[in-house]
């Protein structure tokens, strides 16, 4: 294979890895802090994509400006939705059987999908690439889409921001402490309930950012939630539940794997990533960067 084909392959793999990382980072943060496998996490992604579709469609006059605006509005909206979810539903389940959290978010998956179906209907929607981000960049004899570069840049920026947030701020210190030992953190005076609300909202915002930028790449439909959810699960499990760097590694692995699959065995591309996950878990039952599980 020539160098430029490899470059195109890697580039396209990194684009889907970027979206996957954003969704998986929120999923893994939420799991790490509150031990909830959030089955409704893909819904935040899907709802944000629908919000952007609605905004750019209804105000078509200057689509680029509206697009920038909706990139801001959609994640904030789903962040608020995440906050409501945590306060109204999940907060009542802490300290109870872990299975209940999983089942509640399973119910929320249907709830959010129902809302999307009623508000936006079942048909496919697509968002055009905004003016400023159209076109290609030439390098190593290949054309790279500017929009895809933009998505990768967003993922890297958000990833760096998360690193800064978790490693360099008070909030991040508390979140990391919650992942390690929520009881001691609560005893040392942190309002763990409020912290959990913040973490859940942050997770929703991350999924929302991915959903907001995905419009020009994928056509938007109600099946989007379950689709990204399964891939994000795989990323998180491969990286190790609760680990943000693990999510980054997992996303790149899966993004590249999937693209390689598309090239070599187009029909069975998605089978590749399931096999990858099954292999990783059989060899390392807690994922690549996963710590040994706690009971409970």
């Amino acid at each position, binding site marked *: 294979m020539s160098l430029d084909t490899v470059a195109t392959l890697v580039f396209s793999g990194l684009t889907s890895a970027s979206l996957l990382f954003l969704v998986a980072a929120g999923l893994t943060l939420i799991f790490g802090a509150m031990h909830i496998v959030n089955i409704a996490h893909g819904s935040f992604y899907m709802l944000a994509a629908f919000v952007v579709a609605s905004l750019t469609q209804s105000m078509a006059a200057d689509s680029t400006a509206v697009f920038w605006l909706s990139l801001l509005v959609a994640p904030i909206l789903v962040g608020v939705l995440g906050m409501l979810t945590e306060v109204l539903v999940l907060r009542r*389940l802490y300290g109870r059987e872990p299975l209940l959290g999983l089942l509640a978010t399973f119910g929320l998956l249907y709830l959010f999908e*129902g809302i999307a179906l009623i508000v936006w209907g079942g048909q496919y929607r697509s968002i055009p690439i905004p003016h400023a981000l159209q076109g290609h960049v030439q390098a190593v004899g290949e054309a790279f889409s500017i929009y895809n570069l933009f998505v990768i840049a967003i993922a890297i920026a958000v990833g760096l921001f998360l690193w800064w947030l978790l490693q360099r701020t008070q909030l991040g210190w508390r979140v990391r402490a919650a992942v390690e030992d929520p009881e001691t953190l609560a005893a040392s005076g942190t309002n763990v309930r409020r912290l959990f609300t913040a973490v859940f909202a942050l997770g929703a915002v991350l999924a929302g950012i991915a959903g907001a930028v995905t419009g020009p790449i994928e056509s938007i439909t109600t099946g989007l939630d379950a689709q990204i959810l399964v891939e994000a699960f795989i990323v998180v499990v491969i990286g190790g539940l609760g680990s943000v760097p693990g999510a980054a590694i997992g996303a790149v692995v899966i993004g590249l794997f999937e693209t390689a699959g598309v090239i070599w065995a187009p029909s069975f591309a998605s089978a590749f990533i399931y096999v990858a996950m099954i292999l990783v878990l059989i060899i390392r039952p807690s994922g690549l960067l996963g710590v040994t599980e706690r009971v409970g």
Partner: protein
Amino acid sequence: MMTESRHSARWHDFGVPIVLACGALAILVASFLVAPQWLFVLQDIVAFGLFAVATNLLVGYGGMVSFGQAVFYGLGAYVMALGWQRYHAPFWLLFVLAPLIGAVAALIIGALALRTREWYFALLTLAFSQLFFTIANRWYDFTGGDNGVFGPMIPSTLAQPRHGLWFVLAVSFIALLLLWAITVSPFGLTLRAIRENPQRVEAIGVNLRRHQLYAFTLSGAFCALAGTLFVVHDQSAFPGLFQWTQSGEPILMAMIGGMNYFLGPFVGAIIFIVAHNYLVAHAASAWELILGIVLVLIVLFAPDGLLGLWGSRASGSHPFMLLRTVVAAMRSARRSR
């Protein structure tokens, strides 16, 4: 809480076979009375009820949250459909073969998946579900790909709705009795003990993983059997049968009815399928929304399911009150003898 669960376990010891027989009889009578389209709904309920109870052997009794039971359900359906159409195998042979294939697949997948625990186990079984979905969806030469397998695939006499219902009912009845016998056997009790306190059970010398693997294998066999009943009911097999959402449905049904009750998942299946049929006919777009709201409300306010609500009401107009009284009277009569 303690006395309550002991109480319900006790009346279930007697109640389950009786309720099962009464239910089967009621459906048999209904098969002569209801409109033809209801015969299909009843078939659907009975087949899916078995799937839900078989899944709950793992989730409710064993505490193993598997999002992969659709693998065996789908396998059962595909063995039936492909065996009949492609290899012209006799129906009865396929009918015996499907649960065996389900058991073997479950033994292999279980041996791999049970290396992990809790969330990793749930997500790994989910990945197996998606792997089978992808293969069924794409392997056009063998499975027909996303077109699935349609057309006649059962003896013509069973294709008649009433006969089909009788068949599905008889198989499901026997299978549920077997499953019930498993749950009250020493093995079933050990399984429940593992769910409650794995460390302690291991400390008294029980091989934890072997018991879990047996449960996974048994559940897989019965899920595959339910898959064959799906074929009798629907006369088709398609990739969606393998999807993780399909794996999730029996768990949702178990949750609606009550996971800690043997027949809880079956009650959940009745409610789920009747509600689904009604809403799809009358308010199609509201189905997901209403299902979601109901599930969240159940988790928050009735985590033990609808049977849990019933069971916790100590006295008053209990629908099973009469039955309970009879059973209690029978027991004390026997004890005094």
